[in-house]
């Protein structure tokens, strides 16, 4: 294998910093010691023989094959799906009991059509308002998988297009909003609302998860209880964003893919930075940045800005997600102005925020 030890310049720099903290080293002595350290860093690896390497590898693979959770991850998808279904059913019963105890309106039974997703892929979003109002996401679009509550939402808001109109499974537009919340857009939940999502981890990405088709973003302050793996049944608490994602405040692994209850893990001490890239039109400018896709973008002195950021301008933002869901921009690039955004008749098309404001005005 190639040597991956630190480079000589790095060692000198690192030793210099260490020397400042320890003290008592002259520049000449530091150079001598750095040379020695560099010699250690360039010591060659012991090259294991092929036989030795293979013996260790086989031992590892044998241990891996006897690992209890392995079949759930790779070997037995049918049993794994059955376990997840069973787990979902148990959790559903528990949730039903909890909702009953909290005096919430119980969701009606959901008919699952032939093309509807598996029961385990149905998800529930309950607003964190002490069980007063429970909303449900029906991921099966306009088919028979709609819940009574979703239909009731459509009836209560005739001016809004319901999830059955144009939404595929798992789209953010499928989120039914609870009564009394801000009607800020067609078929979408209000950005920043506290939501709770119980579902199965379908994908695990870098700094994000997909739970029942909904992207869940992990931030520096996301508290994770248990070990996140694909197939695990999790409860996510966080804030809903206008782009349909959820910025997770807390994730609890309830059932591992193997069906067992997730063991507790040690609390994290160092946060994981989550990088994010956003593209869209600037909705509003603020004193410390601007608003893009419903998300507050913070621009600081160290942010690289290319072009003039103004309302309507199409921009690309790279930065890191902060604890409050805002994005600390590292780079902002203006990819076009809003002036060229015109409809078929040559009339400039209003931005989403403008539409939303007009909609609310009519309400």
């Amino acid at each position, binding site marked *: 294998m190639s040597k991956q030890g630190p480079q000589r310049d790095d060692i000198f720099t690192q030793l210099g910093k260490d020397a400042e903290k320890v003290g008592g080293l002259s520049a000449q002595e530091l150079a001598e010691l750095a040379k020695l350290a560099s010699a*250690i860093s360039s010591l060659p690896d012991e090259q294991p023989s092929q036989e030795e390497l293979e013996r*260790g590898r086989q031992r590892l693979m044998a241990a891996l094959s006897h690992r209890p959770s392995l079949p759930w991850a*790779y070997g037995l998808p049918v049993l794994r799906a059955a376990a997840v279904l069973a787990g979902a059913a148990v959790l559903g019963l528990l949730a039903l009991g909890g909702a009953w105890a909290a005096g919430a309106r119980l969701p009606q039974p959901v008919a699952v059509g032939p093309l509807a997703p598996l029961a385990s892929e149905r998800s529930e979003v309950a607003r964190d308002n002490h069980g007063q109002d429970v909303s449900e996401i029906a991921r099966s679009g306009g088919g028979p998988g709609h819940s009574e509550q979703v239909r009731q939402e459509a009836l209560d808001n005739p001016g809004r297009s319901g999830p059955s109109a144009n939404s595929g499974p798992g789209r953010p537009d499928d989120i039914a909003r609870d009564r009394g919340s801000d009607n800020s857009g067609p078929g979408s939940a209000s950005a920043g609302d506290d939501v709770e999502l119980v579902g199965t981890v379908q994908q695990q990405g870098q700094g994000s998860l997909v739970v029942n088709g909904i992207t869940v973003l992990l931030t520096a302050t996301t508290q994770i209880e248990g070990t996140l793996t694909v197939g695990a049944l999790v409860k996510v608490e966080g804030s809903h964003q206008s782009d349909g994602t959820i910025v997770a405040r807390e994730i609890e692994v309830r059932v591992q893919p193997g069906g067992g209850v997730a063991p507790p893990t040690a609390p994290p001490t160092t946060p994981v930075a989550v990088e*994010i890239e956003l593209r869209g039109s600037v909705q509003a400018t603020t004193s410390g940045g601007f608003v893009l896709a419903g998300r507050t973008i913070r621009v600081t002195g160290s942010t690289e800005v290319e072009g003039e950021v103004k309302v309507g301008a199409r921009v690309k933002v790279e930065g890191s997600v902060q604890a409050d869901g805002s994005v600390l921009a590292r780079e902002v690039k203006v990819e076009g102005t809003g002036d060229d955004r015109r409809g078929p008749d040559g009339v400039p098309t209003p*931005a989403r925020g403008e539409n939303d404001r007009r909609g609310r005005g009519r309400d």
Partner: protein
Amino acid sequence: MAVSGSVVTRSVNEDALLAARLKAGDPQAWERCYRLWYPRLLTYAYRRLGDREAAADVASDTFVRALREVGRYDPRRLSLAGWLFRMAHARTVDHLRRQARRRAVSLEAESHDPAEDTSERDVERGDLLRSLSRLTRDQQAVLLLRFYVGLSAEETGRVLGKPAGAVRALQFRALRQLRRLLGATEEGTSEEE
């Protein structure tokens, strides 16, 4: 709708991604991890123990232990390298404790006879290894972890169970001692000549 709102996320911590795959029991991830780190773990253990067979056991045991404990591994606390070497270090210390005395074959023993080295570089390397073997165990560990493995002072501290400040002080004491030993070696060589 003017906002396309496409979101692409990526973590800056590659260890976190690999750890997730290791936790999921992904054989390819384990294979990759093994290929990447086995030689370095072997070398670290060999430099500490001076026994190739024991070193291979330590390196191999480290992975089996890692497999058992990966569920508790938190990449936010320690890098993957730091985590693996912490386990390897613990096994090495256990092995050293079990030894009634240090074996005659010490750290200076290479897989070949240093006397056969002909190039100046090989001679220097042989001197370096001999001198390293004469340092205290803590001094050897801190120099290998800091400069051979490339861990930070903080991570080395977590591996050795010492504060980062103590690691920094120890590394300078070790480097000074190493310089003295190598100086003595050079003087001895020039006297022979």
